[in-house]
């Protein structure tokens, strides 16, 4: 029965889903969390230098969303609200650990679970040479983002991954739009330099 209901929830409009979740419908809440779990993970992954326990942080974000979904007043602000939670969880953890920023180990990529590589091999739709090129580009982009200083890294993630507007980013970072605009421009200039071989 739950399985059949879940299939319907998968097609449900986001606003309706939030409505249902706020009405103590746990299947709706589960679907809401499922729908956003990937982007939450990815955001935390790119915000943080390697070594951070992204699984734990993702769980913490999901827990906070679950616990406070009823306090969300404007459903249309869900994305902004969710990102504020991600940001808070990330920086709470960072403050606790007093970590050193911008550490990147190229080895860490190869220590990732094996499905990273097997996924690449399974896909036969792309020519092997192109696959290698894409893989190399992915590694370079990952490295380039992680090497950015924190203020630049966070705006790139919030803009390019989350697709937030400058105003939304400014609210999350508690700064003004001009600063966001300038940081995004500078971050892109740095990335352009690092990725220049792929941009010409």
């Amino acid at each position, binding site marked *: 029965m739950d399985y059949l209901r879940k299939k319907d929830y998968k097609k449900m409009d986001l606003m309706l889903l939030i409505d249902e979740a706020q009405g*103590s419908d746990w299947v709706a809440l589960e679907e809401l969390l499922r729908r956003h779990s990937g982007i939450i993970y990815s955001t935390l992954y790119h915000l943080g230098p390697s070594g951070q326990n992204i699984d734990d942080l993702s769980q913490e974000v999901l827990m906070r969303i679950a616990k406070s979904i009823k306090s969300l007043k404007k459903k249309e602000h869900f994305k902004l609200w969710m990102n504020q939670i991600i940001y808070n969880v990330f920086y709470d953890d960072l403050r606790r650990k007093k970590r050193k920023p911008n550490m990147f180990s190229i080895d860490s990529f190869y220590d990732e679970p094996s499905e990273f590589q097997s996924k690449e091999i399974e896909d036969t739709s792309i020519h092997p040479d192109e696959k290698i090129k894409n893989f190399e580009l992915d590694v370079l982009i990952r490295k380039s983002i992680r090497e950015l200083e924190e203020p630049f890294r966070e705006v790139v993630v919030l803009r390019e991954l989350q697709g937030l507007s400058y105003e939304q980013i400014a609210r999350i970072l508690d700064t003004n739009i001009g600063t966001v605009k300038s940081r*995004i421009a500078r971050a892109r200039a740095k990335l352009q330099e690092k990725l220049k071989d792929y*941009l010409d």
Partner: protein
Amino acid sequence: MRNGINCKLVSEHLSAFVDEELDFDFSSEIKRHLCECLDCRRKFAKMLKLHYLLKKYFAGESLLEHKAKFVSNLKFVSSVDFVTQK
């Protein structure tokens, strides 16, 4: 230089232009400048390419593979929520 718009100004605002974060009038001025200036058009093309490379990278499935690892715990998350709220 045209109507106060020059290459330096365009270069400074190209990133926000790509993000469609400029007001309509200023954006139109930049568009007009781009039609006339090859150097700025090249910079714009490069900026746009970076934007799409990052979008493609972030949209890649590799990282999302991870979600399967912890999505299995979602039932626990939502159940805990409603148990604690009742």
